[in-house]
Structure formats: C-alpha cells, structure tokens
C-alpha cells in the first residue's frame, strides 16, 4: 500500500534540484577518486596500444577474452533504459515515473563505454579510428555489410542516438525549470538548452505523445541490438558452444535481467546520496523486484534450454565444452558462482516482501545479479572458444592479464564518473513526471478503504 504524500511544486523543485543548485559535500571527493581511476584506465589503454595486444592474456585458440565479455556486459546493462522507460510507459505502470531518466542515462553512458571495448580489443585500433568510423573513405573500399561486426556498430549507433534524443526530449521541461532557478551564465546556457519552453498545453501534449511514440519506436531497436550482438557469436558454425539459435532472445532477456538490476542499484544510490525518499519509495523497489523475479525465471529457463539443446546433439566437441565449462577447475567454481549470484540468491531474497522493501538488501542483491551476468558472458565466450573444434591443440586455459582487469575496473569508474557529472548539471529524477504523478493520481473511498486511482485520458 503506497503512502501518498501531497507535495507542492515548490517542494518538488527544492528537493529534486538539491544536487544541481547546491553541491553535496561528498561530491568532490568522490569525483576525485573516480577521476583518478579513469586516468589510470586511460593510461593503461594507451600502454596497451603502445606495446601491442601481447600484454593481454589472449592466446590461441581463445582470441576473444575479457574485452568482448565486458563489451557484451555493458551492452546488456544499457538495456535498462528502454526496458524501464518504454515498456513500462506503454503498459502505463505508474511506478516507473521517478526511474525513467536515470535508466535512460544509464543506457547512454553504458553504450558509450561498451563501444570502447571493440576498439581497444582490436589489433590495430588506430586503423578502425580512421577506416571504419565514421565510414571508410580512406581506401576506397567500404565495410563488408555481411559481417556481424559491421552490424554491431550500426545497431548500437542507432540505439545510442535514439536514447540520447529520447533523453533530451524528456529533459526539456526540466531544463526550463532550471532556467528559472539559475542566474548568470548558467541561466543563459540552460535557456539555450530549454529552447524557450513555455509549458503551454500544446507543448505538454506533444511531450506526452512523444513519450509514447518514441517508446514504441525504441522498443524494436532495443530488442534488435542485443540480438545482433548475440549473432556475433551465434553465426559462427565452427564454435559449437556459440552456434545456437536461442542466443538472440537468451541474450536479450539476460540483458534485461542485468539492466533492471543495475537500475535498482542506481535507485538505492540515488536514495542514499541525494535523500530523495519522497520520490524513490519502497513500493518502487517492490514493483521492480516483482518484475525481476519474472524476468530472471524466464532467463533461467532459456539458460537450461540452451544447455539441453547443446547436449542434445551428442557431439564430442559439445560434450568436451560442457565438461570444461561445468566440471573443470576453475570453471566449475565460476559456474557455481554464476548460478548462485545470477539467480538463486537474489531471487531467493526477492520472494519475501520484507527483502523487497529493504533498500540495503535490494542494493546488494542487484549487485550480485550483475556479477553473475558478467560471469555468464565470460562462461559463454571463453570456454566456448577454448574447446571450439576437434582441432584445438593448445590446452592452456586463457586467463586475463592485469592489464585487462584494470581496463575492466576502469569501465565502471568511467560510467559512474559520467553519471555523477551529469547529475551535477541536470536533474536525475524527471521533475515534471513527479509533478504529473501528483496530478494524475488520486484516491477514492470504497466504504472505509481508500484505493489509489490513476487518471487515464
């Protein structure tokens, strides 16, 4: 039962802009620490460019390792945004409102980070920089449209552009609010960004229509992006562990699992750092956890289908692969950890209302989920390659080198750095949505009980 508090617009402005109009005292220290991490990361990347990929742990037959794993991981995280804002908008779920922007923001920044990894994992990234991006005019031969590695940038670019525009459109009314609260140079900048928003019925109506229409357009992109990423792996008949038809929906549902969990993590942080307790309420965590239980279970079902059908063929390479993946040290440990953190522990917690409403529990479980999902990608990619065919003749396992680990850590620092940077200048919770929910929800008396009501037009 949601305890509904009446908030007038002044209070909403004051509380939700507390990160923008004044600076919390933890802000600069945290940014400093993250900044150092980011710098170290970039230094490592430059070192790797300078020395060559020899500094990584990659070796035949495992030609793709931690970088591609992390790439898939971040693309997965990026599915949070549209999942929350589009699907829940189309199903008119009221509790989505405070979360949408943060989720879309996570989408944008995690996609930006994901794009780094195919770049740094390539043998000659500088060539990519001027041959493939933006497009290959240099040597008079255009990229191969048959290659999944060419589908990727197209799909991810589409998704990135789309969600950035989505983010901006939904940001305009709040920019207007900031414009009215600031002075001097800040005011001019915000006024330019706000495009002279006045808030007349036409603009509000378009704002609402835009939400629905853009969601409807982003949804197919959202599904296609991770399907295409999964096809990078699934289309190669040589790698038995990858050549499975279920990969596309399997990756998508897994991405939703990890993405929504990442949103939960972020909501906890927002609640703790900016004290937005009036807007991010336990009932939101409750709803998200219920959603996550369904998603996680579907994802587990796909996992088992994939496993069953890989063994169903009874081919020697497949069986060798699964033996390595599940029963051989250290993979067996990773496999168990993946099952525990990816499903068993979190869902086990979410089954109980007390855990669903407990912020700390939600925080840690959602982090566990993402640990598990990262391990899942690692388990798909690396063992799959190390036993890909009967001709594998080097049996040393691949293990990431310190350089790769540092770059993995860098990606996390980088994303949170960008998020905090954004949070300094723009509101993380959409103010107009918060105000709208004040207008569009009410209560009705049924006998003695009061039932929350939602207004539909």
């Amino acid at each position, binding site marked *: 039962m949601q305890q509904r508090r009446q908030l007038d617009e002044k209070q909403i402005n004051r509380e939700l802009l507390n990160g923008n109009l004044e600076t919390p005292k933890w802000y600069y220290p945290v940014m400093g620490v993250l900044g150092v991490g980011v710098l170290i990361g970039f230094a490592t990347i430059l070192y790797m460019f300078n020395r060559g990929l020899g500094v990584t742990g990659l070796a035949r037959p495992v030609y793709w390792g931690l970088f591609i794993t992390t790439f898939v991981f971040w693309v997965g995280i990026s599915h949070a945004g549209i999942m929350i804002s589009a699907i829940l908008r189309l199903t008119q779920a009221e509790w989505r409102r405070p979360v949408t922007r943060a989720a879309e923001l996570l989408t944008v920044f995690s996609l930006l980070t994901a794009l780094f990894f195919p770049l740094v994992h390539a043998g000659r990234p500088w060539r990519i920089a001027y041959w493939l991006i933006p497009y290959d005019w240099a040597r008079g031969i255009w990229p191969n449209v048959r290659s999944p590695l060419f589908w990727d940038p197209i799909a991810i670019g589409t998704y990135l552009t789309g969600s950035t525009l989505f983010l901006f459109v939904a940001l305009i009314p709040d920019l207007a609010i900031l414009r009215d609260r600031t002075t001097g140079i800040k005011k001019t900048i915000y006024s330019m960004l706000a*495009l002279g928003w006045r*808030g007349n019925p036409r603009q509000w109506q378009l704002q609402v229509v835009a939400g629905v229409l853009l969601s409807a357009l982003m949804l197919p992109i959202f599904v296609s992006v991770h399907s295409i990423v999964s096809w990078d792996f699934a289309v190669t008949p040589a790698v038995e562990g990858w050549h499975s038809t279920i990969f596309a929906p399997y990756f998508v549902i897994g991405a939703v699992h990890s993405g929504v969990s990442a949103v939960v993590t972020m909501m906890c942080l927002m609640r703790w750092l900016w004290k937005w307790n009036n807007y991010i309420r336990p009932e939101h965590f409750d709803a998200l956890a219920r959603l996550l239980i369904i998603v996680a279970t579907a994802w587990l079902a796909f996992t088992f289908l994939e496993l069953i059908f890989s063994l169903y063929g009874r081919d020697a390479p497949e069986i060798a692969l699964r033996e390595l993946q599940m029963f051989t040290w250290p993979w067996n440990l990773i496999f168990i950890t993946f099952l525990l953190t990816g499903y068993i522990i979190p869902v086990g917690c979410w089954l109980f209302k007390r855990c669903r409403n407990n912020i700390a529990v939600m925080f840690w479980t959602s982090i566990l989920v993402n640990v598990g999902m990262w391990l899942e990608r690692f388990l798909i990619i690396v063992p799959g390659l190390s036993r890909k065919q009967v001709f594998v003749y080097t049996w040393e396992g691949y293990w990431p080198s310190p350089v790769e680990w540092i770059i993995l850590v860098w990606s996390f620092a980088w994303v949170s750095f960008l998020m905090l940077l954004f949070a300094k200048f723009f509101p993380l919770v959409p103010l107009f949505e918060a105000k709208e929910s004040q207008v569009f929800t009410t209560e009705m008396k049924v006998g003695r009980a009061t039932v929350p009501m939602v207004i539909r037009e």
Partner: protein
Amino acid sequence: MSKISILGLYDNPDSAADALDALSEAGFDSNNFDVLTGTPYPEGAFGEHVPQHRLFRFPLFGAIVGLTLSVFLTSTTQIVYPLITGGKPILSIFAMLVIMYEMTMLSAVITTVIGILFESRLPNISMNVYDTRITEGLIGVSLVCTSDKKETAERALNSAGSMEIKSSGR
C-alpha cells in the same frame, strides 16, 4: 498598431479556467491566448481548445527515407566490390536486412524528434512575457493583443482574480 503580450498569474486551476472564459467573452480569439503551467494537466482541463498535431506523419516519412538509403548503401557496397566471402551470394539479402532495419528505425527516430520539436513550436524565440514562478506551481494565462485592447484584457484577467498581471510591448 503595436502588439503587446500580457500575462496573468493564478494560483489555482479553476480561476485560470475562469480567466480563459472571461477572455473569450471579452472577444479575444482563442488562438491568441494560452495557458502556461509547470505541470502537464489532462487535456482541456482549463476549457482551452485541444491543439491538433500531425506528429505521426514524421516517423513514417523518416522510415521511408531510411529504408531507401539503407537499400542503396548495402546493395551498392556489395555490387561495387563483388568480393566473394564464404561462398555467400554477392547480394546477401539476409545480411542486408539487418542493416536496412536498423537504418530505417534510426531515421524514423530522428525525424520523430524533429517532428516533436516542430510540432511543439520549439525552439521558441518569441519575446512574450514570462514569469519564473510558473515552474513553481503558478498558472499563467498569456495573451497577445494590440495595445489598445490592453485595458479590456487586463479587466478580463482581473475578473478571474489573478494574483498579478505583467505585460510587455514588443
């Protein structure tokens, strides 16, 4: 005769709605006055005329453009460089499908956003009078009229009990 814009501020929706009625009674054209709120209200909450929009045409147009572009790009790339890879046909339709799909969606999204800005008349550089308290919960009724109608307009706005009236020539 110079045009001026007048803004009346109200602290509750009903009086704003009254103000709109008063204005239309005073014989102003409903295209000339407007309600400014800091919150999206349900359509017609102030008895204003519900604006019409043609937003749905934009994505359709964009989709068509994107589709043609992508068909051109993918087919030319493969025809101009007829390099056989993996025994696949020179025009591999199913590989092209992916790219066509993505580019179609991309340009549909872009045109939609353009359409949104266009339809909601943004960016808006009109110098009409505005008040920052509107984003704090006050409701503004703004009006553009010729300067000789100023008194009638202000009377109408006052009749609905406005907190404050601002006006500016331009």
